[in-house]
């Protein structure tokens, strides 16, 4: 068995110093786990784009050096925006295989030190060249999926605008959230168009942030199952309905099978809401809602913490923030806090949690199923 023994994160924001945020996240995780640097036997680093965003290479060594862990063996995992959860999965497999324990997983990304256009271009490398030649960016691809979802289920812009409103409301009380202020449906609909039909406030922000987790053979939150799947890189090469992500369906099925769970067992989920439509779509792809029923589930209760399951109590990528290489670990951090009854937006009686992270446009999806042991 592999477990999360402790977790730490820095408050997300803009113009943060990478070295300092890595140090602080590692300090917090080690303190939470009740251990110290000398005990760590290996480190897995999650970072998606330091070469393009920070002009840095050899990122694993850079990270362990600045984390005060020089000498400890380290690896870097990069699967785009699912890098954090992929690194966690790799580290868990290494602990299970007896490579050593405790181990540290550190994820970080500094995205706001370059102009937005430059960051967008770096993230655009996650797409196929044909899509880039057609003039699309990642938001453009998601806008296409949004149009398909809206047409398939007769969903209007106003209904989708409620998703970021919920995210911001939850993030108000999350001490590590980037946006701790509310927005309204009117704000969302009045924000500028990025790619029809999605607008600025339908999109997660560029974020600086770092998160660290200590893995061991015992801890307060155990890994019940892991699942992952890829799909064709290009949207046009896929055969699934255009409003679905087949990779999420397969990754979730593998995770449920590994854990011996059904979707109805999940109490709380942190899913990859990089854009508004991805919250209902992912709920449906994860089997947590019927096809077309994601929005109904999200707004089934006036208090989002009373929904079953509770969805993105952190405020999600939209409002907690989306430092791409660290995002999967931020989601794990939130579920770890939920399952140890320490979350800012605590879901009553949460015992089983699901983390879902997408590595690009519906690709390289990873899922982790976690269970509290106390």
């Amino acid at each position, binding site marked *: 068995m592999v477990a999360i023994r402790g977790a730490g994160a820095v408050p997300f924001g803009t113009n943060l110093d990478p070295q300092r945020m890595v140090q602080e996240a590692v300090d917090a995780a080690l303190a939470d786990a009740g251990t110290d640097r000398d005990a760590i036997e290996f480190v897995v680093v999650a970072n998606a784009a330091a070469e393009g965003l920070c002009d840095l290479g050899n990122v694993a060594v850079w990270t362990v050096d600045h984390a005060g862990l020089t000498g400890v063996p380290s690896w870097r995992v990069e699967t785009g925006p699912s890098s954090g959860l992929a690194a966690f999965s790799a580290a868990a497999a290494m602990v299970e295989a007896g490579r050593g324990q405790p181990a540290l997983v550190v994820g970080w990304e500094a995205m706001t030190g370059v102009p937005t256009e430059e960051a967008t271009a770096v993230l655009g490398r996650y797409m196929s060249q044909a899509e880039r030649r057609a003039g699309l960016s990642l938001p*453009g691809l998601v806008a*296409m999926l949004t149009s398909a979802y809206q047409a398939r289920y007769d969903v209007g812009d106003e209904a989708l605008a409620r998703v970021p409103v919920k995210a911001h409301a939850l993030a108000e009380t999350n001490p590590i959230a980037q946006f701790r202020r509310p927005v309204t449906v009117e704000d969302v609909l009045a924000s500028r168009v990025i790619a029809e039909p999605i607008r600025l406030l339908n999109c997660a922000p560029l974020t600086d942030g770092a998160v660290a987790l200590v893995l061991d053979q015992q801890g307060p939150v155990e890994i019940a199952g892991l699942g992952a799947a890829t799909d064709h890189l290009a949207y046009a090469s896929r055969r699934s309905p255009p409003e679905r992500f087949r990779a999420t369906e397969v990754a979730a099925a593998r995770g449920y099978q590994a854990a011996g769970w059904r979707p109805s067992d999940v109490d709380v989920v942190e899913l990859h809401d990089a854009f508004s439509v991805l919250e209902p779509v992912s709920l449906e792809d994860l089997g947590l809602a019927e096809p077309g029923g994601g929005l109904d589930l999200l707004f089934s209760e006036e208090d989002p913490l009373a929904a079953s399951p509770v969805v993105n109590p952190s405020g999600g990528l939209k409002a907690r923030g989306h430092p791409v290489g660290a995002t999967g670990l931020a989601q794990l951090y939130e579920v770890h806090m939920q399952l140890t009854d320490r979350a800012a937006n605590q879901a009553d009686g949460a015992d089983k949690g699901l983390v879902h992270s997408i590595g690009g446009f519906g690709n390289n999806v990873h899922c982790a199923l976690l269970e509290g042991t106390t």
Partner: protein
Amino acid sequence: MSPADARVLAATRPAGGEPVALLELVDGTRVLACWQGSQMPTVGDPAQVDGSPDPAKRAPTARAR
């Protein structure tokens, strides 16, 4: 390639850019195409693809049928 019948599966118009559509040809092949027209195409509408859908070349163009 002669013009091919298709239908619109998904579409967008990036800010400051031209509309782009994901189309499905009658044989089930999917093609990403630059849309000829200023309005964003409607999902489900019939379309006509011009030019080659070879992904190694520039994106083909398409229009309403």
